[in-house]
């Protein structure tokens, strides 16, 4: 059986939305993960509490319910209606960011205490120690688990079909209804999602290789 290339054009719009949500969600997830992960380690108890509450709430409830909440409940409660694509980016960013925060926190904590002591003995303050000594070492530890989380995020983008977005999955469902070529359509979806996650893995591997030699505190010159 030849690959059903002829199905691709009808899936393109959906694929584009899936990519936008996955990319936007990833950027947000990394930002939230860093903020909340560092927040957990703050000296300020209020910052620590805010970070913990965020992490527990978004890890402790399902992404689907979070989507419903932001898309259907917020307009009723606050009169705030957000675009469905935007809700998808925001919720997946917040959701995966909460898991990512734990990755950030534990990577930072696993940098040996001696590193921090050596930096302190050289008169570096907390911020300089974090920026130049701890984070560069921690980021290498974060990359593999972050790769997993971004793949998780990619797969979760299919949930946005439940809040009216015609993403790749929903486009596939429509296409199956139109063509009745069930096996081929779903085979195509599998193939596309799988290729995307392979790409994420490749990018993370590349990053890891790039960061693990020639790391420098002044950025690369």
């Amino acid at each position, binding site marked *: 059986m030849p690959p059903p290339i002829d199905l691709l054009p009808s899936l393109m719009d959906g694929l584009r939305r899936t990519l936008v949500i996955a990319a936007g969600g990833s950027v947000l997830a990394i930002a939230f993960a860093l903020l909340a992960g560092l927040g957990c380690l703050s000296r300020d108890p209020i910052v620590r509490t805010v970070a913990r509450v965020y992490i527990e709430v978004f890890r402790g409830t399902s992404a689907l319910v979070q989507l419903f909440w932001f898309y259907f409940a917020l307009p009723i409660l606050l009169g705030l209606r957000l675009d469905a694509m935007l809700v998808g980016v925001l919720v997946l960013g917040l959701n995966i960011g909460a898991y990512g925060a734990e990755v950030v926190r534990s990577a930072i904590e696993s940098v040996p205490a001696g590193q921090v*002591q050596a930096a302190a003995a*050289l008169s*570096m303050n907390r911020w300089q120690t974090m920026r130049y000594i701890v984070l560069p*070492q921690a980021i290498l530890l974060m990359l593999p688990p972050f790769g997993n989380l971004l793949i998780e995020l990619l797969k979760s983008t299919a949930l946005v079909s439940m809040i009216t977005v015609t993403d790749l999955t929903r486009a596939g469902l429509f296409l199956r209804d139109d063509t009745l070529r069930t096996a081929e359509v779903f085979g195509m979806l599998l193939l596309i999602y799988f290729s995307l996650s392979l790409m994420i893995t490749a990018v993370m591997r590349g990053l890891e290789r790039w960061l693990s030699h020639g790391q420098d*505190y002044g950025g690369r010159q």
Partner: protein
Amino acid sequence: MNESRPPILRIRDLHKWYDDLHILRGLSCDLRAGEKVAIIGPSGSGKSTLLRLLMTLESPDSGEIEVDGQAMWSTTPAGRTVAAGEDVLRRIRAKLGMVFQHFHLFPHLTVLRNITAAPQIVKGIARDAAERRAGELLEMVGLADKANAYPAQLSGGQKQRVAIARALAMDPSVMLFDEVTSALDPELVGEVQDVLRQLAHQAAMTMLIVTHEMQFAREIADHVMFFDAGTIVEQGAPEQIFSAPKEDRTREFLQRVIDR
């Protein structure tokens, strides 16, 4: 020697607890600028704890520490032990350098960057000036050819020599050495001791050296302190401590380490 100058290091009645472990029990001592002091004593007696307190890596429960006439920890009239303000602490810390038993080099930075990092980041020294100084220090510790190596590519002795150069790059007036040869293979001890000997020739450099190498302590120090159970049991000139210790505990300790 100018006796009217305040001691570079003045410690009074220092106490430190870890939970219900009383680690430092009323420690007092003075160090004059330029003095080379060896601290010997059984493990667990609080030697590292003292150095960590001096480096402000930890806080004492009570007592006073002055560095070069500036109070780092002091006692209020109400009897509370308080730290100096953050900016004073920063100035004081800059006068102290520390070398650790396990090196603690930054594994993600080259040897050169390990040395130039703090001068550039903390003191704002220009990159080329910092690199020039690092080059001199690497020359001094005999590792000029390793500037672009990463710590993982070095032997233990080389790592420790880089760690010494890294501390010196901040121009401290007091250097604290915490058993800097204890983690090394025996054949690498000598090269690190040579660097310490060389440093000891600098008249202005104050050195506080915790060591288990009695022969080395005797040779390098002009003053020896014997620590046991969180206090200084006995101190004096190396000849006196090693040849004619007054205290039983000192005698027993020396007997034990020399037998080994």
